[in-house]
């Protein structure tokens, strides 16, 4: 990037660091759905503004200690279901502030009872460039909820 945009000075920070904002909203409460040997959970954007879908870098999900297999994961945004590898191209599509990213994948869960849901999201913040490149936030949250069955 030549002359027209400055780096934001966050060089004392590493790329995993940002102020707390709305990371307490990362997981949509009570959004776990168990559907046979698959499950889904709704994720909320932990930022005050929409970002292009190309900024969604990685998502991992664990329920009751069981990891959702990455290869089996599908991501529903703006009414379309995709694989994670398709997101880097989506510079003209947004993840809006009030929308959920619905993540589904292989996970054999016992219906009924309470479930421990853990989510990690890695998201680029496209207007903040540090000495390490475009800022990537790395947010995790764990919530307990009952699973609905489909």
């Amino acid at each position, binding site marked *: 990037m030549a002359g*027209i945009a400055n780096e934001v000075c966050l060089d004392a920070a590493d790329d995993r660091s940002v102020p707390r904002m709305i990371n307490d909203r990362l997981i949509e409460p009570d959004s776990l759905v168990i559907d046979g040997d698959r499950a889904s959970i709704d994720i909320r954007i932990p930022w005050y503004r929409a*970002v292009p879908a190309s900024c969604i*870098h990685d998502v991992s999900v664990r329920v009751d200690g069981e990891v959702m297999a990455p290869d089996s994961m599908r991501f529903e945004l703006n009414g379309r279901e995709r694989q994670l590898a398709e997101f*880097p191209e989506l510079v003209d599509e947004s993840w809006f502030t009030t929308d959920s990213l619905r993540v589904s994948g292989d996970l054999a869960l016992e219906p009924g009872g309470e479930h421990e849901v853990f989510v990690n999201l890695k998201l680029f913040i*496209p207007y903040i460039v540090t000495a390490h490149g475009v800022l990537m936030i790395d947010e995790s949250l764990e919530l307990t909820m009952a699973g609905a069955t489909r």
Partner: protein
Amino acid sequence: MTGLGSPVQGVTLYSFTRAFHGRQIDLEGLIRKVAADGMGPGLEIIGFSSFRGFPEVDDAYVDWFRGLVDETGLVLTSCAVNTDVGIRRDRLLTDDELIAYMERQISAAARLGFPLARVQISLTPDAMEKLLPIAERLGITLAIEVHAHHHAHHRLVQALVDRYEKLGSPLLGFVADWGTTTTGLAPSMVEAYRRRGASAELIDAADRLWRDYYEAGPPVDDASHGGRFGSFIELAAKNGSPELGIDLAINATGLFGPARVESWLDLMPWVRHVHGKFFGIDESGEEPSVPVRELIALLVGAGYNGAVSTEYEGWHWNYWDDAFDIVAGEQALQRDAALRAGSGMQVDPDAARRQLASHFGLAGLPG
């Protein structure tokens, strides 16, 4: 010598991020509430926060939005746009791509009826010069936000002033953010750190370090800022909370700027809009860390007739108080401060519309 100013009261919907993001109220609900509860007449909106699909907005959406604003009697003041150089995963945008990206947002802001687009200080003087013909074609003001850790006398701000003087356009200016000129860390933030495990020793040490920097004055360049940033990280590590270090450093240097209120005077000829940034209101109705009374008195004394968007940012850490009550509290403080300064905040929609049209040098503002 100008007469006393009467700044236009208003609010940015950013203040209500938690309620909007939490789906407790939608954009239309927020606009109606701002009008009904007397938090206007000025209305500022962040494009990417509130407008679905921004910057692509179709004619029907524009009609709906402008109709709603007209119906409520509010007056649009500023649309905040973003310098998203990092939307691609393989590389940053080129200069030409970034100018085109900014043009789409600025054009959307103009179509939606805003007289001013807030742009970010990551844009250089060269970028502003390239964007000026776009602003002239659209009849919209472009104002770079001066926000902590920057301030009126920072090297980057001075470089922009030099270029603005050379270009001599009334459409280029600044947004003055009050977080640049604070007098201490916010009690609600300190309370949040306490709840997250910060010891009394860390809280005292952070307060002392911030006061040392306040006495020394704001950082003149980014190297100096970087040193201060690192010192807060070290402080947290030394006092038993290394996990809070980066968060504390970002907030203490990036939200609580140590510049003096008077430093705005040198920038006033270029100030086109103001962010009335604040973090909370205490039991006596005062803001403990932002000198709201002095800041309003400065604007009144300088003859400023633009808008002040009340911008509540305590929601980053304060999830226990209602943002609407807190915003109302700061606006009451602004009104009292303007009265005591011999003037008043402009709260009448029609008068505000005429006043802003004159402030922006326009024949008339929509709505």
